[in-house]
């Protein structure tokens, strides 16, 4: 276009010169013809030049059109470039992720809104500043080292970089970065880094880790057996307590099916529970497992379903509390309760249970029968007001006082029935202590009417027997006296007589003396041993 411009000017200049020469020719007659000729030639030339000029002009117009078209194309490109630039600007500025750009001299050149939000700095506060201002002192060197690696052409691959905020707080950012080179592909223009604030996530991860550690410790140190099984009831995890509870090593029990551990009769219950788990329900139930050495182990199972992220059932987790001993103790307590209940209800002795104010709590059937009262007549009432005859009130109050002071009362006395008749009873009152505190009294009444009658009869019989024995004894003594004295006298005289007789005459007296001794022996045996013999 420029070349074409110059040609046009030259042509115009030549045309002017020609006009000047025509003028000179006109001035000169002589040369007029010549001039005419020249003019004609010049006209011809001019015509040719005009034609050339016209052609050039046409060419110029075409070039101009081309130029205009090129200009339009350039303008469109510029527009496109501007739009793209604006787009990128917006993209960087309004991206959710913090984006920062710095030049090779580590001067910050771009700082998007997300970064502003992250750090509290405004872009104009940091643009042109050293990049290092964004790193806390403690980790600055390491961060700068990573940046240096970036400058050497290496990429960060999700590196955690602590960022120092304007308020002094530090946030942890997970970074990706890239170098931006010039068209030559060698000259480093800038470095762009895109971050992701993972401070909260990191905290959450730490908290989760800590929480997991806590739960792990909790699970491992729990007294209860904790067990995880899959949807087919295969055990996939247990804590030590669960393995210990059943006498297995953990590696032995993991992989076993729960059905292998449970009492066969309870498999339907186990299946029912598994079904509940599959329906997403938690539950608590009691089941009997068997230890490795075949002993039953009563367990309360608290189980909950385990589902994956898609909400599909994957198994269950259960907390298993060994209640074997508790169960035994409960059974023992139940047995004792029933035992004492039976003892109370079926006792042949009247029993009344009193509270610490000596008011009736319960009476047994024998008591009802013995005194004619029903529980409704006496419940909550002072027992002494109902069954103690007037003349025994003082004694009864003394017994009550003794029992309420924690002492046992044993006595035989008289008590009164509902109809006013009296009944001889033996009383055994004993305090009831629970945890060292007296909470009431048990009093046992035994109707001793028959025993008293029997005792009286026995006493009477005893007296009769005693009198008879006494009489017998006296009889024996008297008998002895009646016999011994004369017999002794007889022996005495025989002895004396024998001394005076010659030996040959003594024999008959000796026989007589011997006969006396035999009688003495018989009398002695009868009187002292009750036997009639010599």
């Amino acid at each position: 276009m420029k070349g074409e411009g110059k040609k046009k000017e030259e042509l115009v200049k030549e045309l002017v010169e020609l006009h000047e020469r025509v003028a000179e020719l006109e001035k000169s007659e002589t040369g007029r013809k010549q001039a005419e000729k020249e003019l004609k030639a010049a006209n011809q030339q001019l015509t040719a030049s005009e034609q050339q000029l016209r052609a050039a002009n046409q060419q110029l117009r075409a070039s101009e059109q081309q130029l205009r078209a090129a200009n339009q194309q350039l303008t469109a490109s510029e527009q496109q470039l501007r739009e793209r630039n604006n787009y990128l600007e917006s993209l960087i500025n309004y991206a959710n992720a913090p984006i920062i750009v710095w030049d090779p001299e580590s001067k910050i050149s771009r700082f998007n809104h997300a970064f502003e939000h992250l750090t509290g700095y405004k872009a104009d506060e940091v643009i042109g500043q050293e990049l290092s201002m964004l790193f806390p002192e403690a980790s600055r060197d390491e961060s700068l080292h990573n940046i240096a690696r970036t400058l050497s052409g290496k990429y960060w691959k999700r590196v955690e970089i602590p960022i120092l905020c304007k308020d002094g707080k530090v946030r942890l950012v997970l970074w990706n970065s890239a170098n931006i080179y010039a068209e030559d592909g060698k000259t480093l223009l800038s470095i762009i880094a895109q971050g992701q604030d993972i401070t909260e996530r990191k905290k959450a991860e730490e908290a989760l880790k800590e929480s997991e550690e806590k739960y792990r410790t909790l699970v491992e140190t729990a007294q209860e057996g904790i067990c995880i099984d899959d949807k087919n009831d295969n055990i996939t995890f247990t804590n030590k307590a669960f393995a210990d509870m059943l006498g297995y090593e953990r590696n032995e029990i993991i992989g076993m099916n729960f059905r292998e551990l449970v009492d066969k009769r309870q498999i339907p219950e186990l299946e029912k529970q598994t079904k509940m788990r599959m329906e997403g329900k938690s539950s608590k139930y009691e089941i009997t497992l068997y230890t490795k050495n075949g002993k039953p182990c009563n367990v309360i199972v608290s189980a909950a379903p385990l589902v994956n992220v898609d909400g599909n059932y994957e198994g269950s987790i259960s907390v298993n509390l060994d209640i074997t001993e508790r169960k035994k103790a409960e059974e023992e307590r139940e047995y004792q309760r029933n035992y004492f209940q039976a003892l109370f209800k079926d006792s042949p002795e009247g029993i009344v249970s009193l509270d610490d104010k000596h008011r009736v709590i319960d009476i047994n059937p024998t008591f009802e029968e013995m005194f004619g009262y029903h529980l409704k007549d006496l419940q909550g009432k002072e027992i002494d007001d109902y069954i103690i005859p007037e003349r025994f009130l003082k004694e009864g109050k003394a017994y009550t006082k003794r029992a309420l002071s924690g002492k046992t009362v044993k006595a035989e006395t008289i008590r009164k029935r509902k109809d006013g008749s009296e009944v001889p009873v033996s009383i055994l009152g004993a305090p009831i202590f629970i945890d060292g505190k007296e909470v009431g009294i048990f009093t046992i009444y035994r109707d001793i009417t028959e025993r008293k009658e029997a005792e009286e009869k026995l006493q009477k019989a005893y007296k009769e027997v005693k009198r008879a024995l006494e009489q017998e004894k006296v009889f024996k003594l008297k008998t002895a006296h009646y016999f011994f004295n004369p017999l002794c006298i007889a022996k005495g005289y025989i002895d004396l007589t024998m001394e005076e007789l010659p030996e040959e005459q003594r024999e008959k007296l000796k026989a007589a003396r011997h006969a006396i001794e035999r009688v003495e022996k018989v009398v002695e045996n009868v009187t002292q041993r009750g036997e009639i013999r010599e």
Partner: protein
Amino acid sequence: MSRVLVVDDEPDIHEILTVYLSREGIDVENALTGEEGVKMYKKMHDERRIPDLVIMDLNLSGEKGMEGIDLHREGKGKRMDGVRATEQILDINPDAVIWGYTAWSDTEWAERLRDAGAKKVVKRLVPFKEFAEMVADFLEE
């Protein structure tokens, strides 16, 4: 010479015991009732002829029937029994030595005699000769 007072309601006992005790060199005095025995002991005591031993029967009633003996034994009879005689002799002389020699030796009556102060109660079944030797041995000691 040792001296013995025999208190017994049987004269035959007196006679036989006297023979055997005399052979042992013992001087014997006899009383047929408790009252007589106490009286004789008092007299001998006053005369300073204190018996070295009193041989005391329990039944001093002289009764032949059991009813009378029962009353006597119970202290309700007319005469004092061996227990009361013993008590009264011991009242005279607390150092008096009294032995029972009786057919009632195994009875509560004999216990009362011991309680009253008799040092020994010998069964009447012990022959007189043997009893006399026991007395002699005791008196020699």
